[in-house]
């Protein structure tokens, strides 16, 4: 249904070039529900906006159904976008239109006859159970009701793909649950493929089939939802599962390391901890190289179902070839880790 290949996206900003997406590739089969998760600034919104080309990727291709979006001209793209619904965190409704008129907007834009629009709008309002609020303005609706208007609007052209950027983040728990239930029902009834961004783990758990973890613009893992929650495959994924006490990595350290990818004399590593013996394996392996010095920069490990889960970040000081050898033996022992990069003057 959705096929993304080699997606790169760079913004030119005052701080220079920001690579918001780096070589992201994945596929989503029809009727699947993909959750995109990741820390703030990981590139989730950018990825979502690349899927209907609201943001133009600098490289790579996006294919929805059998249409290659990245090869369409502006006119064709506008038409193709009708087949891709989008739902927004803050609803993005028009304040001077009633619920009914908001839902009618996409149909008006497509130039449909008035009678057809009226019929379709009633259908859609029924679908999201907003019959009674049809003539209310957005300011007269609750957050949950507004989001239902937003969903009805996104469904106007019966799209096969629905993109949702944090559809429940602006809602209280009750309303969030209603919206999740609505999306869940819609995806079953309409065989809708859903790609959604969420910070809320409960929402991910109850709506997603597959979880995609973004970190620094790169896709770290694409894991079935049950497996993701029991055993994330990437350090970034593991980090997200312990949000109650987020790791406080020194920010300058991380950003400096990110600017210098690869191994250097002082290398920053993050390990995903998913079993009780993980830390001992890591320290045993590293201590076999006596010339290496280790600083634990941050650790966040907790017990879940009898297993230690979390992440551990260390700075390794030493000769780069020695560090590489140590990393290789860690890899042999199936330790999940990420080389964040290296720093210059961290003694």
């Amino acid at each position, binding site marked *: 249904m959705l096929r993304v290949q080699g997606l790169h996206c760079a913004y030119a900003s005052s701080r220079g070039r920001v690579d918001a997406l780096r070589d992201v590739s994945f596929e989503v089969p029809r009727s699947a529900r993909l959750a995109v998760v990741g820390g703030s600034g990981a590139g989730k919104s950018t990825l979502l906006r690349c899927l209907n080309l609201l943001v133009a990727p600098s490289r790579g291709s996006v294919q929805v159904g059998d249409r290659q979006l990245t090869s369409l001209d502006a006119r064709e793209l*506008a038409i193709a976008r*009708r087949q891709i619904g989008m739902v927004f965190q803050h609803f993005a409704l028009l304040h001077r239109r009633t619920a009914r008129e908001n839902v009618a907007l996409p149909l008006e834009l497509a130039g449909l006859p008035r009678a057809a629009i009226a019929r379709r709008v009633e259908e859609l309002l029924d679908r999201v159970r907003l019959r009674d609020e049809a003539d209310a303005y957005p300011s007269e609706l609750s957050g949950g009701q507004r989001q239902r208007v937003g969903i009805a609007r996104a469904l106007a052209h019966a799209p096969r793909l629905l993109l949702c950027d944090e559809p429940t983040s602006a809602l209280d728990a009750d309303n969030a649950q209603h919206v999740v239930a609505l999306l869940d029902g819609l995806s079953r009834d309409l065989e809708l493929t859903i790609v959604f961004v969420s910070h809320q783990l409960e929402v991910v758990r109850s709506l997603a089939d597959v979880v995609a973890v973004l970190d620094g613009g790169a896709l770290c893992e694409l894991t079935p939802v049950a497996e993701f929650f029991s055993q994330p495959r990437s350090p970034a994924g593991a980090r997200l599962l312990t949000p109650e006490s987020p790791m406080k990595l020194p920010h300058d350290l991380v950003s400096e390391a990110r600017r210098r990818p690869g191994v250097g004399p002082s290398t920053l590593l993050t390990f995903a901890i998913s079993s009780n013996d993980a830390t001992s394996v890591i320290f045993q392996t590293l201590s076999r190289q006596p010339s290496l010095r280790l600083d634990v920069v941050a650790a966040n490990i907790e017990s879940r179902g009898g297993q230690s889960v979390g992440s551990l970040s260390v700075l390794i000081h030493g000769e780069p070839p020695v560090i590489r050898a140590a990393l290789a033996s860690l890899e042999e022992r199936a330790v999940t880790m990420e080389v964040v990069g290296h720093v210059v003057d961290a003694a």
Partner: protein
Amino acid sequence: MSSTLLDALWSASVETLVMVGVSSAIAAIFGLPLGLLLLVTGPRHLAPHALVHRSVGLIVNAARSTPFIILLVSVIPLTRWLVGTSIGTAAAVVPLALAAAPFVARLYEQALRQVDPATLEAARSLGASRRQIVTRVLLPEAVPGLVTATTVMVVSLVGASAMAGAVGGGGLGDLGIRYGYQRFQPGVMAAVVLLLVLLVNAVQWAGDRLVQRLSRGAAST
């Protein structure tokens, strides 16, 4: 107050209304496309165009920073060419509209900028063309703000028209100067000021009422 004076006050009021009304309409007609152009050609907007954006901005700023009294005199050749004369109510409309258009263009730009960018993005996601985004979303959503901006412009044109009147444009300003200042009749002066105050308040009141009616729903921002 004699009946000739009352007649003079009446016709001066009509002249002021005509001057303000016509120059407001002209300024709004030119100001709206200018304000829209300033907004959409800006960086990361609907139709970014650095050269157009900067040159229109420069012209608008230059026109805005010219003192009205200087504009009044310096456009006389243009006025002659357009209206055939440089005195009278019709002639006063030219410098008034010329001063108000760039002023209101900036106000319109601000009002249009208040429209939530997310709604423009939503419209794009729904398959709207750029033209549709402007006509179906940007302008309709900005209507209350545009009315507020227009009210501000009309109010300041009432003041400016009095000044234009003093240099031969007719209207209340002219009357105030001729009777109140040159012939020293403070009663006429007071009547002129009172009428101007009433006019400004009426405009403001009507503008506010209109904005209120146009802002749909309870808690419009």
